[in-house]
Structure formats: structure tokens, C-alpha cells
């Protein structure tokens, strides 16, 4: 009865990236993130610890969400348990724990929903698999809703479009409401709301970093590429993930953005008030927190008097920016309407390429044989450019224009079918390393295939989480940790700085 897999392993017998494991019930039940301490919970409007009447409060919250989110209601009602999603989650593929099958993850919440909000569940719970919210069930929620990176791969395959991300966000929102928050996400949200970025980088440190970068680029290229901070009246406000200011390979991407802006001849700035593209309010399903973080960006744009808003390479960040920013913090009628609001740095670079305003020397990347990891939330939660699917085509067009050797990974692991890096959705924390490693397995196997078949040496990504996660897990799978690169790092390598030939493009550099 089982479906014959089309992917197959590599010709040489390397394992199929999407190989379906045997069920190993409960094998990941002990995987739990650290709990958020009271001082992290309270500033976000959540109880400090598990409240006494947590059961009733949880059901109350569930009723509230049921009234506020159509997705919650339709998704919990509509599932027919057809099984289409059961082999689609990278965490299931990597662990075999059946509760990591998307439908089973949803069922953790659905069983309680049915018990309280459906006729059958109230009177015949055994018939429809309804259950009370016991301490044990809550424990499962905490484990398994933190084994979902909200990557939406399951939603591509569900015949009703049920998106487990929505359910795990709702689960986390309910848990926050009863005082059972996750340290990693809530601590970060607190930092953004007080300091302006996930890392808690103060303005002084930021300034020093940016000055160092300018110096470094000047030394390397002889060109005074600027890295401006809080410059009023700049045309563009760049909102990048804060990892771009300190982590590798993120920082190489930031240098790439700066070089592109330099070549475009536009003035730009970073804001020390809104130094963070990522919006972890999404991860915990909190509209209010997501909105607060989004409003910081609006305030920074207003304060600096910029005309355009450009986002750096970050996956969930771009989803929030693209899909939600206008709703949460718009209307942006004070910005220049001739450009998309907000715009992605890849859109910016691609437009410049199309206009023939970038000279790209592909040979500068000849030491690299490249592939591209579609970041999940860019792929399935947003768009780049005007056409549906631009989020797949534009980064590839940029990379191919910058590098002579490009090979895609297996078709059912890229584009809309891309497998998550394993670290998204608030899981990029050390205590969750086991699930992070397991979740990366499909991607690592797909990379192994192209490494063996095409000699691929590097994988470009356009998400701060992907980059950080891969830097950690690549060595666990026998790759070099520097095999993950930023898209704009590849651009940075290839870009020819200066106004030598009045800015006209080098035709050889046009990859498409």
C-alpha cells in the first residue's frame, strides 16, 4: 500500500532525503525548551508561572482564539485524518516520533478542542478521540508545539490547506496565557521591545561594529563603502536581522547589502531603535507582541524620515514584513509608493541587476560550487517580485548571475516543497539541539546528494536562522560549518565596486 518514493537516493546510494522512518512513539517526548522565568513573562503581558486555574484559563483562551481566528476554527474542524501530511514534517522524518506528524501534532490540541467545543466530543469523547486537558496533555503540548518550526510544509500538501504552524502558534499562545512560556522566544521578544533587537545589542556596540566593517571593506577593496547608523533623511531604512551584525556568515551578507547600496548610489541607514527584522511575536502566536515589534519599525522610519523600507535576509522576518507589516503597522503612506513597501534586499538587488546597474564578476566565486536552500517562510509565507514564485526564482537568478556553478537539490526538497533547516520557529536554542539536528536530516541528505553528484561545496541561504542553524548542524553531518553562505555574501564576492564604466553593466556578468 505504501507509496513508491519518486525521489530515490542518489545514484551512488546516498539515502533518500525524504525516506519515511518507522514509528518510534514517544521518542522525543522529553525534548522541551527551558521555561520562561516570571521576569521574562510579565513584561509581555503573561502570567509569571503556571496559574492555579490553568485548565479553565486554557479553555477560556481556546474559546477566545476560536472567535478571533478563522484558521483555528476551520483547521480544527476540517481535518479528515486522510494521512496526506503524515510524512511531510522534517521533524517526523528525522525522529519517527508519531507526534511529530503534522496531523498528530494538531490532534494534541484538537482532542481538547473536540472535548469542549464539539457535540460528539462532549458526549462521546471515546468515539472521536476527544480528551480532557490533563497535566499530561499539557506536557505534550509543551514538548511537541516546540518541535514545530512553523515552516508550513504540511500546509502545501493538506487537501484543505490546514497549516500546523497556526495550530502550534495557538498552542503556544494558550500556554503563554496560563503562564507556561518558553524562555528563548519570550526573552528575545523582551529584548526587542526594550533594546530594539534580539541580541540586546546597544547602540554603542552597533556603531563600533559598523565602523569596523567600513574599515574592513575599505582595506579590502579600497572603496569607502558606508555603514550608516541613525542618519536622518537617508532614503532607505535597512531592517536586517540582528545576527547580521555579529554572526558568520550573516555579516558577510550585510557587507553585500552595503556594497549593493553603494553601487546603487542611494543613501541608506540602519536604525538603532529598530535593529531587528525578526519578529518572534509570530512564533508565540501573539498578535499583540508582533504588532508592538512591527510598530518599532514604523516609528524608526518616521523618526529618520526615510522614503523606503528594505529588509535584510531573514525568513520568518520576511514573512512578517511581507505578509503582516502593512496590516500591523501600516498604512505607510509616508513612504515612496513607487517601490514595494516593504522591499526585500533581494528584490532591490535583482531590480538593480535588471536595470544593468551592477557589474558582477562571476569568476570571483569560481572556488564555490553552489546550491540554494529555500528558507521555509520566504518560500511558503511570502513572495519576492511581482510574480507568484518570485521568491524561488529571484534568489536563484541573483546567485546564478554571481556564480558559475549552481546546482539545485532534489526537486521535492526545494521551492514550495523546501524542507526547513530545523531551527526555525523559536527552536534555535541549545537545549533543543537533539530535535534541531534530527530536523535538519532531510536537508543534510539532499545536500549530500548534490555534493556527491555535482561536487557542490556551499549552500546559500537567505535567513538568519537557517544560517545559524546550519553553521551548527553542518559539522554534525560531516560538512564544513562554513559551507553555509549568505546570498549577499555571494553577491559581495562578485560585485565590482566603483563607477569605472559609468555604472553600465558588464554583459558577461549577466547570468540569465
Amino acid at each position, binding site marked *: *500500500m*505504501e*507509496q513508491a518514493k519518486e525521489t530515490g537516493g542518489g545514484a551512488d546510494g546516498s539515502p533518500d532525503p525524504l525516506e*519515511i522512518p518507522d*514509528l518510534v512513539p514517544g521518542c522525543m517526548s522529553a525534548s522541551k525548551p527551558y521555561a520562561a522565568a516570571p521576569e521574562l513573562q510579565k513584561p509581555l503581558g503573561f502570567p509569571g508561572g503556571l496559574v492555579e486555574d490553568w485548565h479553565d484559563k486554557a479553555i477560556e483562551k481556546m474559546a477566545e482564539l476560536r472567535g*478571533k*481566528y*478563522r*484558521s483555528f*476554527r*476551520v483547521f480544527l*474542524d*476540517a*481535518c*479528515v*485524518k*486522510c*494521512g*496526506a*501530511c*503524515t*510524512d511531510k514534517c522534517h521533524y517526523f522524518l528525522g525522529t519517527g516520533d*508519531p507526534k511529530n*506528524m503534522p496531523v*498528530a501534532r494538531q*490532534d494534541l490540541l484538537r482532542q481538547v478542542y473536540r472535548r469542549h467545543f464539539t*457535540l*460528539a466530543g462532549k458526549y462521546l469523547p471515546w*468515539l*472521536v*478521540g476527544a480528551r480532557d486537558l490533563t497535566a499530561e496533555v499539557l506536557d505534550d503540548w509543551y514538548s511537541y508545539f516546540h518541535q514545530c518550526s512553523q515552516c508550513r510544509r504540511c*500546509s*502545501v*500538501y493538506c*487537501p*484543505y*490547506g*490546514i*497549516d500546523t504552524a497556526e495550530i502550534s502558534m495557538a498552542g503556544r499562545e494558550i500556554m503563554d496565557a496560563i503562564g507556561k512560556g518558553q524562555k528563548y522566544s519570550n526573552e528575545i521578544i523582551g529584548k526587542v521591545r526594550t533594546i530594539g533587537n534580539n541580541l540586546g545589542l546597544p547602540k554603542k556596540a552597533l556603531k563600533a561594529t559598523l565602523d569596523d566593517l567600513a574599515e574592513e571593506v575599505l582595506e579590502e577593496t579600497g572603496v569607502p563603502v558606508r555603514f550608516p547608523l541613525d542618519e536622518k533623511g537617508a532614503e532607505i531604512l535597512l531592517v536586517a536581522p540582528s545576527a547580521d551584525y555579529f554572526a558568520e556568515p550573516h555579516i558577510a551578507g550585510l557587507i553585500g547589502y552595503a556594497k549593493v547600496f553603494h553601487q546603487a548610489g542611494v543613501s541608506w541607514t540602519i536604525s538603532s531603535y529598530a535593529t531587528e527584522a525578526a519578529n518572534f511575536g509570530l512564533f508565540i502566536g501573539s*498578535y*499583540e507582541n508582533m*504588532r508592538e515589534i512591527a*510598530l518599532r519599525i*514604523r*516609528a524608526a522610519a518616521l523618526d529618520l524620515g526615510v522614503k523606503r523600507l528594505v529588509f535584510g535576509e531573514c525568513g520568518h522576518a520576511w514573512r512578517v514584513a*511581507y*505578509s*503582516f507589516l*502593512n*496590516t500591523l503597522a501600516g*498604512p505607510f503612506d509616508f513612504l515612496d509608493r513607487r517601490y*514595494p*513597501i516593504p522591499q526585500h534586499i533581494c528584490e532591490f538587488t535583482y531590480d538593480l541587476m535588471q536595470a544593468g546597474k551592477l557589474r558582477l564578476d562571476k569568476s570571483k566565486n569560481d572556488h564555490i560550487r553552489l546550491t540554494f536552500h529555500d528558507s521555509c517562510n520566504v518560500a*511558503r*509565507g511570502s*513572495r519576492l517580485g511581482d510574480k*507568484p*514564485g518570485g*521568491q524561488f526564482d529571484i534568489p536563484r537568478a541573483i546567485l546564478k548571475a554571481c556564480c558559475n556553478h549552481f546546482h539545485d537539490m532534489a526537486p521535492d526538497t526545494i521551492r*514550495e516543497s523546501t524542507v526547513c533547516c530545523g531551527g526555525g520557529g523559536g527552536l534555535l536554542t541549545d537545549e533543543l539541539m537533539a530535535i534541531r539536528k534530527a530536523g535538519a536530516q532531510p536537508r543534510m541528505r539532499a545536500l549530500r546528494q548534490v555534493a556527491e553528484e555535482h561536487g557542490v561545496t556551499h549552500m546559500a541561504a537567505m535567513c538568519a536562522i537557517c544560517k545559524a542553524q546550519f553553521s551548527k548542524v553542518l559539522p554534525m553531518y560531516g560538512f564544513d560549518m562554513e559551507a553555509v553562505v549568505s546570498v549577499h555574501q555571494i553577491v559581495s564576492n562578485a560585485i565590482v565596486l566603483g563607477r569605472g564604466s559609468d555604472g553600465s553593466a558588464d554583459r558577461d556578468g549577466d547570468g540569465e
Partner: protein
Amino acid sequence: MLTVAFAVVFYLAAAVLALGLGFRIWEYATTPAPLKIPTAPAPRTRGGVALRLWREAVLFESLFKANKWIWLFGWVFHAALLVVLLRHLRYFTHPVWEWVALMQPFGVYAGFAMVAGLLGLWGRRVLVPRIRYISSPSDHLMLMLLIGIGASGLLMKYAARTDVAAVKSFFFGLMVFDWQPLPADPLLLAHLGLVVALMAVFPFSKLVHAPGLFFSPTRNQVDNPRERRHLANWARELEAGRS
């Protein structure tokens, strides 16, 4: 007595189905979808969304991407069920519409296809460990119910033929509130009893996946969040006093 009982039960079941489903749709329609969450790549126009929903409802596009076996069994079952339902229009129209008369033989084939599709789905539910794991008793019962309806229908056609003229006059009588006797044929009563059960549980079970699809935000939203704000009423309230 039998006629009265079935007539009353049919009226009740029809009412439950219509009101229950109407209520469910009203619930879905009036619950806000506060954020744009179409699964990308998504259509940029209403027309594109209509086409996407059409492909989902008619071709089961996403399911096809997911799993060819489930798609095959599921699609065959649903398509066959549609043909079978249309075939049954002959019990409710007089004179029978021409195209309904013409399709009668196909309706019978569809009866077999429907049961075959259901058996395929049930087979997977029992044999594939992943799907067995996620199944509740109700999931099995639902398949049994549908198979029971299909099998009893086919038996009436091939094993113990029932008096279809009398059945037709019973249903015609129901529609004009002039009750006619229902033949006391056990197969027929089983068939109709199961249909009544299906109608009654429809709005309270996973069968609401039918209207649910059309209200699924990941499928029915236009991809235009940068062009338009998408504020729910409850979210608009947060805006008061904002800069």
C-alpha cells in the same frame, strides 16, 4: 407506521443537515481571519483564488502533490459519489430529466467505483501504521457508514431488487407533503437509514471539510498584503490612539 416513521426522520435529518451546515458556514464566514496567510506561492487576484479553489475542490490538487494513493482512492470515491448522487435525481424529478436518464448506467458503475475507493481508503487506514496511529473509532465508522450506503444500494440493484417505482412515489410524496407508502424492504430500509444517519452527522463531524475548504485562509486568500491592509475588527480596536 413505517412510512410515517421514515417520513418524519427524513424531514428531521434534512432539517439538521440544512440548518447545521448553514450554521457552520455562518460561523466560518463571520469569524475573522486577521492576517494574510495564503500558502505561497499564492494567486494575486480573486480570479486566481477562484481557480485555485476550483483545482482543490475538483482535482484535489494538494492531495495529488502529497500522496498518489490517497489521491487516487479519495478522488475516485468523491467523483463517483457525485455521479451516484446525480443518478438519484431520478427519484426526485418527474418526468426524469433527460441527462439524468442518460447517465443511469454510469451511475451504476460509479456505485462500484465509490465502494472501491472507500475500501482503498479504509485499507490504508488499517494497514499504514502512520494513518492507523491518527485514526479514531469515528474515522472507521464513517467509512463503514459510507460503504454500507454504497453496498446496500448496489445490492438492491443486483441481488434483491426493490420496487423503485414505490420508492419514487414515497420521495415525491415527501416533497409535496402527501405521504405515500414506503416498501418494507429490509435492504431499502437499511440504505435509507444509513443515509439519514449520514445527513444528521454531517454538520457535526469531519464531513464539514466540504465547506471548510472554501473558508480555509491558506487557500482562499489573495496574495496582496503589501498593497492592502487586512485589518480584522478586533485588531482595528488596537489601533485607537496609535501614532
